């Protein structure tokens, strides 16, 4: 069942286009990560879904109801902010109670002193208190309820912010980089917790982050946004292994994917060193293309074999792996290789080496960055004297 659907959302600020017609849908219980470099429009998109900003064009529907013109308070969404946005003058317990009190108590009932005299107020307040306590114990923050945000650590604040968002079963959960203010250790731990909470609550979640590993590790589906465009929305494995666009391929993966420029002949054949790929050339003329291969699908060999000849420029020892930076002799492009310490043991800077790629893992991209279909039709070892 579709819980959230966006259709053609576009937004610009004073001539700057922030979002160019974003369309996608989220299913019940789904966790979608919106990921992209800063300034790609992901936070703006989240604010538009929340109702804090309004789109110039396009519609938003939540649970089948068009909410494009509905104010934030009536969209039944909850949001966790990057700075947590806890009210500093209220205790954790009071912070968690705010969304309930705002909805269940009338303006009169919320007045200090006078409110407590009105009929029904006591009953509702007790009910709210019970829900806050339940929420707190499920997040294990019972002991924090009496503290103010200023007296809590970053991790504790983040949990209180989560509790405030979850306490009133929203139909969509929005998170704007909720982990970016935590230190590295806590961040990895909190990832697991948020995924866990999401599974238990079953509320569809839009999660904005600039951290690709967060997106890949937490989400059911990852949406990569670059320059106001939604380039691809797919599950983490698919989006990593089969990026639809060179920018997606470049954005995901550490170290970055190797991209080398070459040409495709009129018949659709691409030759790169010893590698031969068959693609489809629609223009029927020689066109420039890009070949991409992730560092883990490249191997370095100390002998004179391999499809490409290269020279070691620099090595980074990272404990369980070694990143070898090489430069291709004939073509001049840089190739980064994820290697093992044992493989790299025999290498040294400046040394000529051979480079092999896993042919099935090589991807072809057109000049505009779009992915092109290609399959390897041959590979051969290039000899020392051969040209690329």
């Amino acid at each position, binding site marked *: 069942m579709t819980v959230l659907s966006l259709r053609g959302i576009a937004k610009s600020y004073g001539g700057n286009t922030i979002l160019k017609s974003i369309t996608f849908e989220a299913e019940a219980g789904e966790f979608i990560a919106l990921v992209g470099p800063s300034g790609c429009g992901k936070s703006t998109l989240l*604010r538009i879904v*929340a*109702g*804090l900003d309004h789109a110039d064009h396009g519609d938003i529907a939540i649970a089948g109801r068009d909410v494009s013109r509905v*104010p*934030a*308070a*009536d969209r039944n*969404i*909850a*949001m966790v*902010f*990057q*700075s947590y*946005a*806890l*009210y*500093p*003058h*209220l205790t954790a317990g009071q912070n968690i109670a*705010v*969304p309930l009190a*705002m*909805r269940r108590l009338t*303006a009169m009932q919320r007045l200090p002193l006078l409110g407590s005299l009105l009929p029904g107020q006591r009953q509702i307040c007790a009910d709210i208190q019970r829900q806050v306590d339940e929420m707190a114990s499920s997040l294990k923050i019972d002991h924090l309820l009496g503290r*103010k*945000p*200023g007296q809590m650590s970053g991790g504790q604040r983040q949990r209180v912010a989560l509790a*405030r968002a979850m306490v009133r079963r929203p139909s969509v959960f929005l998170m704007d980089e909720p982990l970016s203010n935590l230190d590295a250790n806590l961040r990895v731990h909190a990832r697991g917790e948020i995924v866990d909470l999401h599974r238990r609550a079953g509320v569809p979640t839009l999660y904005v982050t600039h951290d690709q590993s967060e997106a890949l590790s937490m989400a059911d589906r990852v949406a990569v946004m670059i320059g106001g465009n939604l380039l691809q929305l797919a599950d983490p494995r698919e989006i990593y292994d089969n990026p639809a666009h060179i920018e997606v391929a470049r954005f995901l993966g550490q170290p970055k994917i190797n991209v080398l420029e070459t040409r495709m002949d009129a018949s659709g054949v691409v030759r790169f060193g010893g590698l031969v790929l068959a693609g489809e050339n629609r223009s029927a003329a020689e066109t420039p293309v890009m070949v991409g291969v992730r560092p883990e699908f490249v191997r370095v060999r100390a002998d004179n074999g391999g499809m490409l000849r290269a020279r070691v420029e620099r090595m980074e020892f990272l404990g369980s792996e070694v990143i070898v930076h090489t430069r291709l002799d004939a073509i001049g492009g840089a190739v980064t290789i994820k290697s093992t310490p044992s493989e790299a043991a025999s290498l040294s800077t400046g040394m000529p080496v051979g480079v092999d790629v896993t042919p099935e893992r090589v991807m072809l991209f057109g000049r505009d960055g779009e992915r092109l279909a290609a399959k390897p039709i041959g590979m051969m070892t290039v000899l020392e004297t051969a040209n690329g």
Partner: protein
Amino acid sequence: MASVATVDRFAIEPAAREARVAWLLALPAIVLLFLFILLPTLAVIVLGFTDFELGYAGFRFVGFENYAELVSDRTFLRSLWNTAVYTIIVAPASIILALAIAMLIEAETRGRAFFRTVYFLPVASLLVAMATVWQFLFHPTIGPVNAFLATFGIAGPNWLGASGTVLYGLAIIGVWQSVGFNMVLFLAGLTAIPRELYAAAQIDGAKSWFDRFRLVTWPMLGPTTLFVTTISVINSVKVFETVKTLTEGGPNKASEVLLFTIYQEGFVYLRVGYASAMTVVFLAILVALMFLQYRVLDRKVHYA
């Protein structure tokens, strides 16, 4: 033994030199501070226990005689009362108006600079001069204020000339003059509120303007409001310029205020000892107000 001493000497010397330089740099300030603030403050307290009068050679200590006289001095009591009334009108009015104007300006996208300039203009104007203009505005027969009221059929009072209205007239000038100052402080306070808090409030269900004000604006402005309140109260207690320029405490001592009474006693009648006792009372009021700010209210508005 000798080597230990050497090490010690090297360790102490830079610190001692630093302290000496520090003393040297601070010396002019320390000397002037004693000369023009601490010594005169002590002197005023001492003088308060004497019958010193300028022009007479000697003086003697009279204990609490001056204070005993103060308690039954109708002019002084009147001026305390008037100062209190003036403060109770001017401080809240200038704070509430300033906050309202600041919030209206903050919500507006255009014309912000213009409105800020207009409301701030009285702060940068010579008060003695503008008081003179107000005197004209308030003139019972030719003043525009009463002429304006007359177009609605209201017979305006003799604002600064009648004992029943003179304090209100002065209070209007006081509010007009101090709103701009408070407003810029509130504007700074409003800009410092994180936007995300308003977003959170919207999502938490604060639909109306008043809900957001109560949930975010008012609590977040706490420190600013406390500071503005303290400053406004102290400045109101220090009212002098308008009284001296426009009413000289009159009519019938209806606008006698604390500083004006001290000025009259001390610098016109030259009863320095007696005026010093009044000054000590004035100083005690200031200390009490500051104490109130720091001890009682400060805890409630800082959330860290």
